[in-house]
């Protein structure tokens, strides 16, 4: 069976280009850890207090942490175990602003520290939660906060949970609306969800 020279040549070019294209690119499009993300937008009577971030990890990373830190293997983390996890498997995120990209009225809000870190086991998976303090007074004028949580290196894939990804706490005195869409910034290295919350003080009904 005869094949023309052109066909063989084309096939070679195709295979070589595919191989070359696929190899370095796999570095970028290949996260090793997967996080399911849920946010609690926490208000107070005065306005926004902060954001609680709730993460549930994939089974493989969860097992790694369980093996390394649940020393007594009781499917629970004691205070000492939690402290070690925070130190060795979380605190490094300070350099990454805890993956949190926040804008208040279009100005960047840098997350420098967090509070109330907790590590737990939920249905066999590792869960982290932490609180980002972020005070914004609610006035009669609408204020906007945009939140996007992602790893710019894309080693970790962070996705909003499919059910009830955003919740609101203590909003009795606050009027708010929110939307979730893909981040618009051209600079964003990964595709991530951005939550936009518009809020203002509830008007008092006199009488």
């Amino acid at each position, binding site marked *: 069976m005869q094949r023309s020279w052109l066909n063989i040549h084309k096939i070679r070019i195709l295979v*070589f280009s595919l191989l*070359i294209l696929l190899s*370095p*690119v*796999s570095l970028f*499009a290949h996260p090793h850890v*997967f996080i399911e993300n849920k946010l609690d937008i926490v208000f107070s009577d005065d306005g926004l207090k902060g954001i609680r971030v709730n993460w549930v990890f994939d*089974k493989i990373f969860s097992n790694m942490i369980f093996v390394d830190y649940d020393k007594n293997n009781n499917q629970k983390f004691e205070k000492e175990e939690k402290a070690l996890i925070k130190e060795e498997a979380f605190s490094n995120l300070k350099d990454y602003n805890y993956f949190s990209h926040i804008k208040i009225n279009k100005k960047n809000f840098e997350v420098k520290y967090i509070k109330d870190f907790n590590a737990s086991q939920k249905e066999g998976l590792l869960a982290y939660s932490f609180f980002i303090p972020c005070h914004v007074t609610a006035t009669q004028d609408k204020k906007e906060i945009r939140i996007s949580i992602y790893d710019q290196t894309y080693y970790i894939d962070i996705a909003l949970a499919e059910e009830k990804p955003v919740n609101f706490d203590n909003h009795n005195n606050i009027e708010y609306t929110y939307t979730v869409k893909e981040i618009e910034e051209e*600079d964003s290295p*990964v595709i991530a969800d951005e939550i936009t919350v518009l809020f203002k003080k509830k008007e008092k009904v006199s009488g």
Partner: protein
Amino acid sequence: MFIKKAFLTFLLVFLGSALLFKDIHANPLLRGKPKPGKTIRLNIYQKGLSQLASVQRKLNKELSGLLTDLKKKNPLSVFTVLLIAFIYGALHSLGPGHGKMLIS
């Protein structure tokens, strides 16, 4: 001969890019990893690939589920999965960031 050449090219490019990009493949959650430099900007093609994230997520869940399922069933299928995983892992470890794991 062609297959050999293709494989060698692949290996060369893969290892070469591994050397170039080795700092990228570090888990930000873990202490002692390199601090981030400039934000890595991905071009359109790579951004398009990160769209596959939802596919990868599902795949990851499926695979994890499969492994837990297999524990309960036929030991032969467990062996097969382990063999495939071993070969995959051996090849995958050629990628960046895994050298440390190999040594430890």
